């Protein structure tokens, strides 16, 4: 042990293997994973949940969540699930996951009722907001954004994950916290064959874990740290939790799973040193909708409807325009202006400056009706995971008073920082694993839920798809009589993992992650060409073959980080290959090919799919409406689903 180093405080077990057999194996313990495990266990299946962190607080909404989207089946909604899903599909030009969002719109509210039964708080039981415009007096539900249509519900989300974790245990789910899943096991060890389980490592002890399972549900969120990484502050490299490094994508890719839309990325909105924490500065979007904004001289920034007409009445910020059925707001809204579903907003910053408004701009909670001020600052900021402690409590302790104080906007309004075009993220509704109506992938027995699915987002979506995948995984598992684990596959995986320890090299995982982001920014930034992408892939291979071989680790925690970076390299390759496969630009996918400048030509209005077949990359295509009729198929595949009363 060198001077200054500490003895590893946990028991070291990297020479040990633990084998666990189960019917259904859930990988990832966020909202999707917990719901998948709960629904599988409730159907009577032996269920194991594997989580890299701590199920009680893991996942993007682990520490809280302020609103529940797309609850179209709640009793106050004026929009039905079909209308809302259609709007979400059209708002993204068809590049959306019709199946998963229909499940969200149809079953999301059921899952909210489930959480409430588990002990979480979903309605204003203390009558704090009695009489507010956004409250339904009968159900005591609070709504956000579109107060007329009432399909987004404000919630006390910091109570959610503890309730879910408790309930997992209550229904008999066996939880393995601090275990990172490292690979998917397939029948006979062959890529693309039926699922047989997964391997993992304990991130504290280093123990090798083997999970034998009839069905596996992947609930591992989406890749991060591809373009953005802060070596000083790796933990806040991206908006999503540091833990969510896209392990599921990398594992599934190596196992032969099919992906789509992986060519889509958008300019970054939050990250590391450049940005303030999300929702921590003055703004009027999402959590802060529809806060008053003022300029440096105290002039109110005008609100406009989708046609540019000034909205005079405060209450009209929460209603569709007279010629509109509904507007979309929140985490799943499109990043570009889509007229049909555009809601009330202030003009863009540059336009306001030209009109003489003076910087800086501020959010002005002081001039809001009291209920609105209280619901934005006290409840939304107070319940959103990233803001409950770091913003609501910290600012309050520092003397901030929403009744008297303005708070400055930075960057381009709500984004809390300005980014360069090549600094990109898989954000909003990015690509991911392709699913069928069972939420099964092309690998028999491998299901997917939550943010690992293509074009997915938000708690309600994660909860609804998790529960759905759990049910369908049980139905699948019941048909499986016997399955075997391939010993060679285990031996290869053991070698891949443990050879990282005790190498002669001296590169730590941060160096490698930084190198990947440099490659992605340079060769897969805002502008793509075949030449750039090919060079990027070559450099990535070079990085893998030379520098990555010198990466070394000193303890099980660093082993987990190193394995994450190997996954990040895999995901970088997947993204660049997907970018190569689409030979046309696309506005909806925020995708610019300088060598194929035509935007969304008819021949390319389709999903491009990609997977590994052996060592070869196979691409294909699917119609944007591959899922067929939403309501008919839903009914066909869910005959035994009764809903929640």
């Amino acid at each position, binding site marked *: 042990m060198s001077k*200054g180093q500490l003895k590893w405080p946990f028991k*070291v077990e990297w020479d040990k293997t633990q084998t666990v057999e189960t019917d259904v194996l859930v990988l990832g313990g966020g909202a999707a994973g917990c719901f998948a495990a709960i629904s599988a266990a409730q159907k009577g299946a032996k269920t194991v949940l594997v989580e890299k962190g701590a199920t009680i607080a893991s996942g993007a909404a682990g520490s809280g969540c302020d609103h529940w989207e797309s609850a179209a089946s709640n009793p106050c909604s004026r929009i039905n699930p079909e209308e809302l899903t259609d709007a979400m599909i059209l708002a993204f030009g068809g590049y959306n996951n019709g199946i998963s969002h229909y499940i969200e719109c149809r079953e999301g509210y059921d899952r909210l009722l489930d959480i409430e039964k588990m002990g979480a708080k979903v309605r204003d039981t203390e009558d704090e907001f009695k009489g507010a415009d956004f409250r339904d007096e009968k159900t005591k539900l609070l709504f956000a954004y579109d107060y007329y249509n009432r399909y987004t519900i404000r919630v006390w989300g910091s109570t959610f994950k503890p309730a879910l974790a408790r309930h997992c245990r209550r229904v008999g789910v066996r939880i393995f916290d601090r275990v990172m899943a490292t690979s998917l096991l397939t029948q006979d060890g062959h890529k693309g064959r039926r699922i047989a389980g997964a391997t993992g490592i304990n991130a504290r002890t280093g123990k090798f874990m083997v999970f034998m399972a009839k069905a596996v549900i992947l609930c591992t969120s989406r890749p991060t740290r591809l373009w953005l990484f802060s070596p000083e502050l790796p933990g806040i490299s991206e908006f999503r939790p540091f833990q969510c490094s896209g392990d599921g994508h990398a594992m599934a890719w190596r196992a032969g799973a099919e992906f789509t839309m992986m060519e889509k990325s958008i300019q970054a909105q939050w990250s590391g040193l450049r940005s303030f924490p999300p929702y921590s500065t003055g703004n009027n979007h999402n959590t802060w909708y529809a806060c008053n904004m003022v300029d440096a001289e105290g002039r109110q920034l005008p609100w406009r409807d989708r046609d540019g007409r000034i909205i005079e009445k405060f209450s009209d910020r929460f209603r569709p325009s007279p010629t509109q059925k509904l507007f979309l707001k929140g985490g799943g809204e499109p990043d570009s202006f889509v007229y049909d579903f555009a809601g009330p907003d202030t003009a863009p910053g540059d336009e306001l400056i030209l009109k003489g408004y003076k910087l800086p701009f501020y959010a002005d909670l002081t001039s809001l009706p009291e209920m609105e001020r209280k619901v934005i600052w006290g409840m939304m900021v107070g319940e959103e995971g990233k803001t409950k402690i770091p913003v609501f409590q910290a600012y309050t302790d520092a003397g901030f008073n929403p009744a008297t104080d303005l708070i400055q906007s930075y960057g381009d309004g709500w984004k809390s920082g300005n980014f360069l075009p090549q600094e990109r993220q898989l954000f909003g509704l990015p690509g991911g694993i392709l699913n069928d109506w069972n939420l099964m992938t092309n690998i028999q027995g491998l299901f997917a839920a939550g943010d690992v699915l293509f074009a997915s987002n938000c708690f309600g979506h994660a909860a609804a798809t998790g529960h759905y995948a759990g049910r369908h995984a049980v139905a699948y598992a019941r048909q499986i009589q016997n399955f075997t684990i391939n010993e060679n596959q285990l031996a290869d995986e053991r070698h891949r993992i443990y050879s990282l320890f005790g190498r002669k090299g001296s590169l730590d995982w941060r160096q490698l992650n930084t190198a990947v982001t440099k490659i992605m920014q340079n060769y897969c930034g805002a502008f793509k060409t075949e030449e750039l992408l090919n060079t990027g892939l070559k450099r990535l291979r070079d990085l893998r073959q030379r520098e990555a071989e010198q990466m070394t680790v000193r303890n099980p925690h660093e082993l987990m980080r190193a394995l994450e970076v190997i996954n990040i390299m895999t995901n970088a390759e997947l993204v660049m290959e997907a970018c190569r496969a689409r030979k046309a630009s696309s506005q909806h996918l925020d995708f610019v090919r300088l060598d194929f400048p035509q935007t969304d030509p008819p021949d390319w209005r389709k999903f491009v799919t990609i997977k590994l077949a052996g060592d070869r990359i196979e691409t294909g295509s699917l119609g944007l409406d591959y899922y067929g009729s939403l309501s008919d198929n839903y009914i066909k595949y869910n005959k035994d689903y009764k809903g929640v009363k």
Partner: protein
Amino acid sequence: MAKKQNAVAAPQDESFFPVVIDSKKCTGCNRCVEVCQVDVFATNPKKGRPPLILFGQECWQEGSCVQVCPRKGAIRWQRLPMQRVHCRRKTTGEDFFV
């Protein structure tokens, strides 16, 4: 495998870590250790003592550890200097940074 038994960690590093633990108030209950999804902390080998902060830079900065602490004042959020946000008291025009 023998070589692998010598797992070590770098010295505790609290630079860039936005959480401060008051060692006089902390009872070493380790709830913060168990709730952290990033596994920033480790249980102190000395029973009843505050946790070790082994990977402070990996903190996702959402404060679950502060949420679960049962002892008032034992753990506190401290915003990093680069994250101080400008506020203005509307009535007096006074500027301050939270």
